[in-house]
């Protein structure tokens, strides 16, 4: 009866590799989070693609034709070309910050999804990274479709526009993490209004998307330069119509890198605080 060194039977011993010593940050776990999103996306891709066709058409018709009739040229390019790149950037912003914010809140509170995932050997950093990375990848689809719509509307973009994909990833990751960070602070759905009208709305306007920053008062210009979306738009314009020198795009990239780092750190910290008590 007494077997001091009794081992659990093989059937309950666990999968051998399931218990190997873990690194602090496991790419495979991020991969599992991405895989979950991919399985869902396979079923809903059509609505993503459809939404990203309709939205730019609305902007092109309203701003491009409506506004473009009044303003012929902006910052040395036709107004239509100017706002077309602005529209791509806005697509990137909306398609990353909104899922980050809305999914982030719903999955934490109503669906209890994160609670389930964190009961597995998953860290908050892996969870936040996986979700932000997914939104960043998904946003390349949105940006790509917007480029096609712009081409169909006769915007003459150079081959450099293929850079839209990495630009979308780099910007989308930061915005998705920003959405997740705000979602972690929300106490109810009502708070979403504050985030949308107080932060996202000014952000998408004061970014050189539909009009250049030069015309704004000094303080608003400063806000614009601090806006990550501005750096995204600048990179997109360079990619579509040619960069003037290397310094400016490198500066834009550096600004986006700093933004990504800050947004990721904030998201990990706030989500951890919201999920672990």
């Amino acid at each position, binding site marked *: *009866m*007494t077997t001091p060194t009794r081992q659990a039977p093989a059937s309950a011993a*666990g999968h051998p590799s*399931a*218990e190997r010593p873990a690194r602090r940050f496991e790419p495979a776990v991020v991969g599992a989070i991405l895989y*979950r999103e991919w399985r869902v996306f396979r079923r809903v891709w059509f609505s993503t693609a459809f939404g990203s066709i309709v939205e730019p058409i609305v902007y092109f018709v309203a701003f491009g034709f409506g506004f473009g009739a009044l303003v012929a040229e902006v910052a040395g390019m036709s107004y239509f070309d100017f706002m077309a790149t602005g529209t791509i950037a806005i697509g990137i912003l909306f398609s990353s910050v909104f899922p980050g914010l809305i999914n982030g809140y719903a999955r934490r509170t109503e669906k209890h999804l994160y609670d389930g995932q964190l*009961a597995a050997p998953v860290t908050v950093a892996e969870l936040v990274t996986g979700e932000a990375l997914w939104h960043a990848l998904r946003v390349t689809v949105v940006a790509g479709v917007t480029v096609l719509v712009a081409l169909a509307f006769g915007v003459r973009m150079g081959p450099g526009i293929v850079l839209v994909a990495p630009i979308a990833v780099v910007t989308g990751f930061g915005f998705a993490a920003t959405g997740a960070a705000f979602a972690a602070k929300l106490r109810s759905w009502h708070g979403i209004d504050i985030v949308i009208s107080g932060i996202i709305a000014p952000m998408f306007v004061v970014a050189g998307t539909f009009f250049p920053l030069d015309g704004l008062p000094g303080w608003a210009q400063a806000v614009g330069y601090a806006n990550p979306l501005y750096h995204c738009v600048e990179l997109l314009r360079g990619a579509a119509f040619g960069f003037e020198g290397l310094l400016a795009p490198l500066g834009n990239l550096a600004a986006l890198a700093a933004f990504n780092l800050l947004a990721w750190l904030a998201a990990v910290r706030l989500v951890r605080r919201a999920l672990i008590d």
Partner: protein
Amino acid sequence: MSSSHLSPPAILLRDVVKRFGPITAVDHLDFEVPTGSCFGLLGPNGAGKSTMMRLLTGQGVADSGRVEVLGHPLPAASRAARAACGVVPQVDNLDDELTVAENLEVYARLQRVPRTERLAAVEHGLALARLTDRRDATAAALSGGMRRRLLIARGLVHRPRLVLLDEPTVGLDPQIRAQLWSQIAEIRDEGATVLMSTHYIEEAERLCDEVAVVHAGRVVAQGGPRELVAALVGTEVMEIGGDADDLRRVERQAREAGLGTRRSGTTVAVLGAEHLDGQAWATGFRRPANLEDVFVVLTGEELG
């Protein structure tokens, strides 16, 4: 002596305190769950059962005290602990956007089940949940009982050495509850350690080698279900009915005879009824004492 006392405990809590603002959910708690046993946590709503479970997965962090799961100190080594744990939460958190099979597969990945074993793990989970024929239905389309079954199967998909079940059968019809009991018994018989919280006395009596009665964040009694009943309320209980005056009289007479009582609805239950021999006031319905009697005597509360 049973072998389990020689191996280190699967779960060890020492003087653990967990507060939420003014509420002390876990109050200087001490207990151990021996490896290979099925251990039940019995307590009324708000006793702190779920809070304890969260401390064991690192999803809650104790304010003070020592928590160890399978030898891993928490929260520092919580990832290693979670890798060997299967968790079935009280609050259903199935992924409604995924199918039944995908729910299992995503968990197998999160639990780092090796690629070559993943398919088999998913099939095993489907069989366990008896949902093989519903594998491609989304979780949102399942009935309440099916969801519970899937939730349990998901917690077991990586064949954990320790299973944490937080009220696994709550809200189920008796038939499905009995099915789940056999599932839990299987896990236990395969050698895993099980910690389960429950409101159902019958569940604890059938499945658990040992139970702890928890009240206001403390363990107020611990032991084998039968020993606890024998030690605290004897072997038999007599239920005596009547109007309010009758009940008060029975309570007084029982007290004079040195016996404990508890009110349950419209009757008084006289504990230790095996010691009664034909007193005139003591006429009623005799039944075996059970854990619920222990529970009420210890906590002064009926189970939910």
